[in-house]
């Protein structure tokens, strides 16, 4: 384990200048790799790469046939921090100290490797205005990313595909690839609405429910809440039929519905 930890730090240090590094240079620069034969080196390097990936450091091979650059490995996954370091207007020491202070107060459990990579690549694509290509529910998509949206415990990518704004659930995105060309489009969609949010509200409901219970479960569905003087009386409008259905099942026995417009839309979902 000691040797692995040592090599990981040596690898990060090797890539600190943000330049492409050839396989031979990697082998020569890391003492533990030097005396290994080619096969053993490949195995050890792949293992170390995979371990670093699990901590959010993505060593990737880059071979751009359209570019004059030599092929080699680069380290990704720190797009934001690398940019911050280059920005002369930012006090990097202060930024780092604040980061360390926050890290002392909270424990950020690592996301899975796939999500870490996707977030990093999407952030880079949005900032550099590059296209993204990925498999999504068995179909290949090429999109212009605009931003991310959080809804009901899941992250969504808001992007333009064939001139239409669409949302893609991050969990379903696979084999994400970043386009080679930067500055291909503008980012204009600050409000990443789901398509069904744009239509008129289908369902309106007046419900008496303990405020605590509403607060705990409200994020299960997208809705608008009208202002009310009574804490437990909620006037809700929504297009999210499945979300409302789940909300009512979760709060079973603890509410009283006073008015319900378009109740049949929910009845269609019930399977008894």
């Amino acid at each position, binding site marked *: 384990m000691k040797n692995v930890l*040592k090599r*990981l730090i040596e690898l990060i240090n090797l890539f600190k200048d943000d330049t492409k590094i050839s396989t031979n240079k990697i082998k020569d620069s890391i003492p533990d790799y030097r005396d290994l034969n080619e096969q053993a080196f490949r195995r050890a390097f792949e293992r170390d790469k995979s371990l670093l990936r699990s901590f959010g450091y993505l060593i990737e091979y880059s071979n751009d046939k359209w570019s004059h650059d030599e092929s080699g490995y680069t380290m990704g996954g*720190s797009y934001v921090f690398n940019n911050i370091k280059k920005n002369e207007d930012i006090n990097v020491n202060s930024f780092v100290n604040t980061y360390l202070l926050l890290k002392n107060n909270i*424990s950020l459990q690592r996301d*899975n490797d796939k999500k870490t990579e996707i*977030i990093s690549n999407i952030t880079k694509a949005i900032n550099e205005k590059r296209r993204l290509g990925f498999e999504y529910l068995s179909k290949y998509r090429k999109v212009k990313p605009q931003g991310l949206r959080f809804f009901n415990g899941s992250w969504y990518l808001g992007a333009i595909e064939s001139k239409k704004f669409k949302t893609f659930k991050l969990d379903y995105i696979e084999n994400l690839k970043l386009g080679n060309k930067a500055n291909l489009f503008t980012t204009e969609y*600050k409000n990443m609405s789901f398509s069904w949010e744009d239509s008129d509200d289908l369902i309106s409901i007046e419900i008496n429910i303990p405020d*605590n219970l509403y607060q705990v479960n409200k994020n299960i569905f997208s809705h608008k809440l009208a202002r009310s003087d009574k804490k437990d009386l909620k006037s809700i409008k929504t297009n999210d039929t499945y979300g409302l259905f789940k909300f009512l*099942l979760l709060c079973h026995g603890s509410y009283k519905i006073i008015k319900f417009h378009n109740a049949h839309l929910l009845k269609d979902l019930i399977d008894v």
Partner: protein
Amino acid sequence: MSKKIDFNFLHNFLQFIQAKNKWKISEILDNLDISFKELIYILDIVSQIYVDFDDVFVDYEINKDTEEINFLFNDSVYELLSINDSELFNLYYLLTIEANFLTLKESNKEIMEFYNILSKYFIIDGLFASDDKSESFSFEEIKTIEYIKLGKTESQIYFVKPIALKLNQDGKILEALDVEENSIKTFLIERIVGINKEENTKPKISTRSALKVKYKIHDTNFLKTLDNSTFKVINDNLEMKFYSFENALDFSLKNIQYINAITPLKLVDEIKIRQSNLLEILNEFN
């Protein structure tokens, strides 16, 4: 080793010690919450790291008389720090929505500046500041929290000593010692409905028992949203284990459009009863 010395810890250690060349040993042990034996283990690793054509990365000397350590750092130590996007993304997310950090952000100029810098890089929609909770968690005092468990509609009171705030796949989590049961528990922040209410009027019912649930899958894409280690697919059915009936019920209801519980019968019946009751209610509004 009582503490897990992993890559993250080593990275944090290097970030910490580079602040100065001479340290009191006790200062390092206290700040990093490690034993002397663990410190020696880490020093052994970092002193064997070679950079820039075989220069020593960190050299050190322990003065037993003064109980101090003198470090000699290679320049690379100061350049090593790398913060990955996912970590910054999670911090940005927390600073946007978590009440405790909102207060911290508003009262601290450096944190506000940190947040403003990140906001130029992350374009995020759908994050709303959480409701104004006047009290926040203190990590020093024992407090009570009122918590609605998953699958339940009524709250219970817990006497807790907060340990850490965590962010993981389930969302924001408070890890705390349940003082009455003397065990460490995790509480989803969004399900904490009250903090610091001293009266303990409601009885606490322990319903914890492991439960294996089998589901019929309606949409196989749903499996992509699950952590691979938490489920099995056997004969086209999804099998999952839950630590309580309430957790299984909560999960089953939240994902009802993708999966339907087949066993155990108690769970299937509970879901049917809830749907039947809802249907009865909806029938009143034809």
